[in-house]
């Protein structure tokens, strides 16, 4: 791998999309991303406010019908190469909400998912583990 490629893989920026989650995973994501105890900045990660700046997108929630189009549009706005991580069981399988009339269900039916982090919600360390796996995937695509 070239030197340039080796450097650029040390700067994976994170972006999170809430697709109708119960906020458990979002709170844990905020905790993972922003607090000293977990400090993902060590891995070169940084939370960004705009989807256009993102490399790794973390999706939570069971994808409700109301957000479906918005989430898909937002996903399109993230420039390639990107990696998708489904955080929590809701985006992975629909979780406990799967059978509802208002839920579109597992997110991999609508967009490509690369890494899954099951849990309800997963603990911050598990999220970091998922991000580390995502970085490995991302490295291949760079």
């Amino acid at each position, binding site marked *: 791998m070239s030197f340039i490629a080796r450097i650029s893989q040390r700067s994976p920026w994170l972006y999170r999309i809430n697709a109708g989650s119960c906020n458990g995973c979002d709170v844990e994501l905020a905790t993972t991303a922003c*607090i000293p105890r977990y400090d993902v900045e060590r891995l070169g990660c940084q939370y960004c406010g705009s989807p256009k700046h993102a490399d790794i997108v973390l999706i939570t929630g069971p994808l409700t019908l109301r957000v479906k189009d918005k989430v898909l549009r937002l996903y399109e706005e993230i420039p390639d190469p990107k990696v998708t991580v489904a955080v929590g069981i809701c985006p992975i399988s629909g979780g406990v909400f799967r059978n*509802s009339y208002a839920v579109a269900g597992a997110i991999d039916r609508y967009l490509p998912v690369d890494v899954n982090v099951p849990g309800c919600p997963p603990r911050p360390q598990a999220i970091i583990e998922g991000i580390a796996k995502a970085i490995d995937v991302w490295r291949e695509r760079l």
Partner: protein
Amino acid sequence: MTTYTIPVGPLHVALEEPMYFKVEVTGETIASVDINAGHVHRGVEYLTMQRNFYQNITLTERLCSLCSNSHPTTYCTALEAIAGIRIPERARYLRVIADEIKRVASNLFNVAIMAHIIGFDSLFMHVMETREVAQDVKETIFGNRMDLGANRIGGVRYDLDAKNQDYLSQQMERMKADLAEIVDIYRNNSMIALRTVGVGVLPHDKALEYAVVGPVARGSGVAYDVRSKAPYAAYDRLDVPVVTETGGDVRARALVRLREVQVAIDLIQQCLRDMPDGPIAIGGLPRIPAGEAIAKSEAPRGELIYYLRTDGSDKPERLKWRVPSYMNWDALHVMMEGNRISDIPLIVNSIDPCISCTER
């Protein structure tokens, strides 16, 4: 100056959850707000009617992770009222402990986010680090950092042995000094005062008119707390002071929440002191007859009310609940008008909006 409309949300970083506002602004001043909800509507009430009483303990807990314990507690209380179950004495105290530890974490999260919104990231991190103590307690005693899984029909399903009681009491003691410092910063820091005093004011009479609940009401001087008005679990034997502030602004609400964290820690310690020995749940699997019941509790965001109707089968005929945030959204109209664009996230956050609870 011309008026234009800016969309806030639905997927906005400052909002933890998707919510969509259309804000009419004149220059930088808010003229009016239109709230467009439903992004987190998952049809949970419908789902509860498709699942049996046991599954609903877990399902109601997944409504919202910040007040996750209040839901199953209140649901089980309603169910127990219908089945005529009296839960063991020890279980009542254990329910209080679980509820209060969630209150500590939930309220701290909200005031931390407030600091984040005004760009005060060091303070945000400090509050979140303090909150981690409560998170560790939850993970150590209950096994998960957000969803405790503390309840079952007829009692609770966790117990505190001597070792865990010591641990819990030590951790609560550990938080006290940090918490006192945090309260001092929120009360006296000039930067916080600059951004929050007089911002998003909800006067006392409007608080009554809009029937707001919880810290939002108490921040406007309405002394209503379900724990003392309509006690449940072991709150009738505990000393529960009702915290109020009079400012009615963003800071008043934050201060109510912070002081309630202090009260919650005190309540946990009271429970550890007074809790009797004994069973933690009734034995066997109860039969749930046809009937209807109301149960209320004080969730971190205020009054939570459950209405349950059963028909003798193993599924609810109707399960309906109204969460505290549901009442507080409407009052945003009063709080926002006349404020600045920069204050939108701050004011929204000050009602501690739980969107996933509200929209179910």
